[in-house]
């Protein structure tokens, strides 16, 4: 997955590899399909 833009406080920047991995891990259970998307 491509590096995504994150915002910490008022600062926007590309996610670091560690942050990107955490974003991917957090969202993995909710994509295709999200458990609430019934």
């Amino acid at each position, binding site marked *: 997955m491509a590096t995504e833009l994150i915002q910490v*406080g008022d600062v926007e920047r590309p996610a670091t590899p560690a942050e990107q991995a955490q974003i991917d891990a957090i969202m993995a259970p*909710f994509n295709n399909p999200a458990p609430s998307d019934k």
Partner: protein
Amino acid sequence: MATPPDFVAGQVLTAAQMNKAGMWLITTQTVGTAVTSVTVPNVFSADYENYLIRYTGGTTSASGATLALTLGATATGYYYAINGLTFAGVAATGAAANTTAWVFGKTATAGMCAQAFITKPFAADETGLMGQYVLQTTTGEGLATYGYLNNTTSYTAFTITTSPTTLTGGTIEVYGMRD
């Protein structure tokens, strides 16, 4: 005195009167452009045990994607149950045990309308979640989420994440509730 919150300009209030203010706006965070996550730092503290997080307005690259809510850097131990209905009366439910985040709402191109009451995020105790969300379209839905985070970690920050969908604009407000 005037009935709060209709104060008179220059009015002097006693501590007893001020202490009746039940909610205090801790911070307002404006969401940036095409971001996939927003971290709001330094909001939970010993000043309050319980908090209200509201995310309203803005837009998104696609409706219907999960808005995930996490505390600090924790990505495990989240439990939640969702109960809701579409405006056509169709059940909209979901649940997860020991997962990577809470589901806090969904993205909506018409603007986000989600809030969550968070109990004891700073205290060394389990953290509770009671959230609500409305998809404001004629074919939308309303959901309520109930959950908790199964650890006793103390947190000062939270993050709202959606991916690969992005968020643009809107406001995140965090209120502390008087104990």
